[in-house]
């Protein structure tokens, strides 16, 4: 069979107007169904005819999934809220400016108007071999094309490889992990709540998925608890260009200080591993220390323990070290 790209194949499109209808469709079609949110991840896959679901369930008509509301303990963001609506939301801006900033760091203005927060955290990896239809481990094959010495892996992982060396490209994911957000997932009539930290799945657990979501599951919303509201949360992304681009690495660090020392910290990096990675060793190293240059330097050094760079991505070691250092040393960006 000859290969052709760049034409979306025939598929059956459903546009439910309620979550119940969407869940019923997902239950009915199981692994034949594809959940379509903003389409930024999806349409590339469809156009290249690499992912060919029989059924597409477009959530665009479910207004309730776009809501952002205050709760008794923080805010709850509908999975279909666009990135721009997260960025512009007054509650998010005032309580969790780092979340707004990380959403603003994603993609381009046009994409932020179309892309959703659910899509941003649930998106697939951007490994160029996998996305171009190479039959790698992640695509059900038995090889990784990105890791041999002749492979091009400048944008691949330095941590957490397990056969696959692709990275999670989300900019909002590390911030949500740092903020101890929770993902509300429904399946039929049942609902479960998953800690953001546990939401992402590495290849050692399931090499064909990026998150815990399975066929039939629907990410409903993201709860951001008030615990880290108005706290010092630092986000920074490094990318090749300021137009649409994924992170070479990013960092989200939440710190609470008390009496001149760091009392509590959550340090999360992304773009360096198949999932956002919480650097617990760094957290342990800085708790009880004053937040200063020396502590930041030490944190950076601890962060790179155990890294395993590939042929072309050794720079990410220094990049991650420096980003972790900055996230402790510098004032949050806005």
């Amino acid at each position: 069979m000859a290969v052709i790209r760049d034409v979306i194949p025939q598929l059956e499109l459903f546009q439910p107007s309620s979550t119940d209808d969407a869940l019923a469709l997902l239950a009915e079609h199981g692994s034949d169904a594809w959940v379509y949110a903003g389409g930024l991840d999806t349409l590339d896959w469809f156009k290249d005819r690499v992912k060919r679901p029989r059924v597409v369930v477009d959530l665009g008509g479910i207004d309730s999934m776009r809501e952002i509301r205050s709760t008794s303990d923080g805010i709850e963001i509908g999975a279909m809220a666009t990135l721009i609506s997260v960025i512009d939301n007054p509650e998010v801006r005032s309580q969790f400016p780092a979340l707004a900033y990380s959403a603003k760091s994603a993609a381009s203005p046009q994409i932020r108007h179309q892309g959703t927060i659910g899509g941003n955290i649930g998106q697939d990896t951007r490994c160029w071999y996998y996305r171009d239809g190479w039959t790698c481990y992640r695509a059900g094959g038995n090889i990784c094309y990105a890791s041999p010495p002749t492979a091009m892996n400048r944008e691949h992982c330095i941590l957490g490889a397990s056969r696959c060396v692709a990275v999670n490209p989300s900019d909002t994911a590390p911030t949500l992990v740092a903020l101890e957000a929770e993902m509300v997932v429904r399946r039929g009539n049942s609902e479960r709540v998953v800690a953001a930290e546990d939401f992402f799945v590495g290849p050692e657990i399931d090499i064909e998925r990026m998150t815990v979501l399975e066929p039939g599951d629907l990410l409903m919303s993201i709860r951001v608890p008030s615990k880290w509201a108005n706290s010092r949360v630092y986000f920074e992304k490094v990318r090749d260009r300021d137009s649409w681009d994924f992170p070479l690495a990013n960092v989200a660090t939440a710190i609470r200080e008390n009496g001149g020392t760091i009392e509590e910290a959550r340090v999360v990096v992304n773009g360096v591993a198949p999932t956002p990675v919480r650097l617990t060793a760094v957290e342990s190293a800085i708790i009880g220390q004053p937040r200063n240059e020396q502590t930041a330097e030490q944190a950076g050094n601890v962060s790179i323990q155990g890294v395993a760079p590939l042929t072309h991505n050794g720079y990410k070691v220094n990049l991650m070290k420096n980003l972790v250092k900055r996230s402790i040393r510098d004032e949050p960006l806005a």
Partner: protein
Amino acid sequence: MADYKLLGKDYQTPDLYAKVTGRSKYAEDHRAEGMVFAKLLVSPMPHARVRSIDTSRAEALPGVEGILTADDLPEVDEPNEAALTNEPLYEGEPILAVAAVSEQVASEAIELIEIDYEPLPFILDPLDSLMPGSHNARTVTVDGEAVSANTMVGRDPGEVKWSESDVAGLAPGEIPMDAPAAAEWSYGDVEAGFAEADVIIEENSYHQSLSHQPLESRTTMAYWEGNKVYVYPSVQSTARSVGPLARLAGVEPSDIVVINEFTGGGFGSKISGYVQAQIPILLSKKIGKPVQMRVTRRDETSFGRARPGTQARIKLGMRSDGRITAVDIHAIGDGGPYGRSGDHMNVGGIGSLCYTPMAMRQRGTGVWTNTPPRGAQRAPGGVQSMTMLEPIIQKAAKRLGLDQVAVRRLNAPEGQAKYGAPGRDGEQGNVSSAFVKEAIDAGAGAFNWSERIQRSGERNGSKVTGFGVCVSSYAAGASGVDGLFVIKPDGRMYIQSGIGNLGTESTFDTMRAAAEGMDMPWEKCDVVWGDSSRHLPWSCSQGGSSTVHAHTRANWAAVEDATQKMKEVAARDLGGSPDSYEIGGERVYRRGNRGQGLSFAQVAQRAIDLGGKYDGNELPEDINGMTTASATALAGQGLMGVAKDNYEEGGRRMSFAVGFAEVEVDIETGDIKIIDYAAGTDAGTIIHPRAYGAQVLAGAIQGFSVALSQKWVYDRRWGLLVAKRFYSNRPPSIMDVPHERPMEWVNADLPDPFNPLGAKGIGEAAQGAGSGAVVNAIADALDSLGDDTGDFYRSPVTRDMILTKLEQAPIGHDRLTAHV
């Protein structure tokens, strides 16, 4: 500058309303009765031979209208490219096309085709085909025999290989300066030049290949009416595409109509048609229905052309006062799999103009590779010259403790400067004019160079500031084409423009020279463009920044023709000699007595009455056949201005852009921000300031792409492009330009003496100014951290390169490795 009514003023182009309201029809907006769609089956391998194709299941699919394969096409002279092939020489090369009632059906049909390939060895990196014992990217059929070749030597396919002794002792990432090369030129005494130098810098440098990436891909629709073919392509030129597209269709130029009123960019990749246009043309002929081939972004990246990458060893000597005494260059061009590319030889050619070295030698070989076909891209070879030579000049000037602007000024060409490869007579060619020192001064003033560079190396936390300057030049005008317009009894002036509406606005800007010359209000002028059946004159290519110079000349010649005719008509009717009349205010009148004369409307009617030369029934003999045909069709409608540009040329028309950049490099993240950019230019008289500024600044942005982001990435084992998508190819957008201050330009405003209006083009030179200034600014910033910290000699300069350099960590490839 002369006191013009129209020239030098901003105005609204006649295509603008359609563009901003979405009514402008680009190639894929066209439809024809019964039109079907073509999709391409392209090679999945960098080099292969098609062993067998079975299309039976595809042909049986309902809705499939027909299939075109390489066997349906006329033979092409090797090493040139055919529209379809049975021996693909790069990934993505079209093998066959399927026409169907929809793209979905055509795509499904392609998936039903059984095709068997024999994979063949491939070359990704030109150096890999020059090394001892290496193989070649392709064979070339010569007299029926398949001959292995890796380059063109003169007019013939040939082979250049380096011997073991040529490469003995070379480190990885080095080119042997004196090893065999396909071409060479020199002037002056190079050895003596180096002997006179106080500093010699010798480096190996890499410049990436870059896809053109126009926003509009080369979609084409075609249909036949009898033996006449109508083609709706996306091309840069209109008049100049007629001949090439007719050849592809196999018809006479009189049997083709080319319709393309709006084109979404080309950057040199669509100058006068493209071989892939043959696919819908011949598929339409085969099946008897209109066929549209929409070219996807992926296909555009595959066969939409690219700037040839260049690898070079460069040696430059500088005297303690900053004068460049000698330059020696051995450059290897990445030629893709077809034809001939000369960019690499222009590294020295353009460098010799911008910096006028006292002596120079350039050697080089363009090597065939199994990567996409190359073509001219905005300042072909010129951008490579600036990006590769500038950091070496900067290094030499730094070693000598000299001001970078002063060094550029000292080495700048003046007047009708000579440059480049000597001709057969041993003499170098010269430019028509060069006001480079004035452009440098204007730009340095606007940028406030001397004050600002005091902050070179200034640290702000982890960020360090650097400044760069670059003198860039490239072609800026053609000549010898025709002007054609008719003033009709309705009092309006109809100006025929065959240039092509690429988006540069020169299609209209140059027509204002005719309006200016006739003293016609612009509101009473209609520009006719974009359709070869609407009687367009022979024009220069809409490429190479040719049009502004060429068509102000041609239209001025037509103005002189029309003016003389008007005076003769008036003298005939009103008495006196023609010389006693002048024109102005839409009238031809007796000098000193405006009342005694005729309105343009009246004179147009009188021209029709008189016939002959006045209304185009008799035409000049020296105009092009295309103009003759068009003028003949327009004859009898009013007073015709028609003439060939026979003005003196004065030399090669070259313009200059001098870029000034401030960057901030974050040494902890490798992040590079362009803080500010300004350009001083020398392109003579400015015809349309807003369009001019758009060329100077947007050209610079395309240069930022070279300096900072855009590149290909190839898997070396499989020979496949992994950075195929627009976003993974990383051209810059408006998000990547300086935001703190608006980018700025200023022109020397000294007219070119060999254009009646003094005008030259600017688009080409603008790009190298941007790339050279930014790579120099990055190096300047990093050099403040320690000598040679800013040495990259490789573009683009990316975040990983900076971080790796600062940590002195290994980078995973050598300095000259292509496509990483």
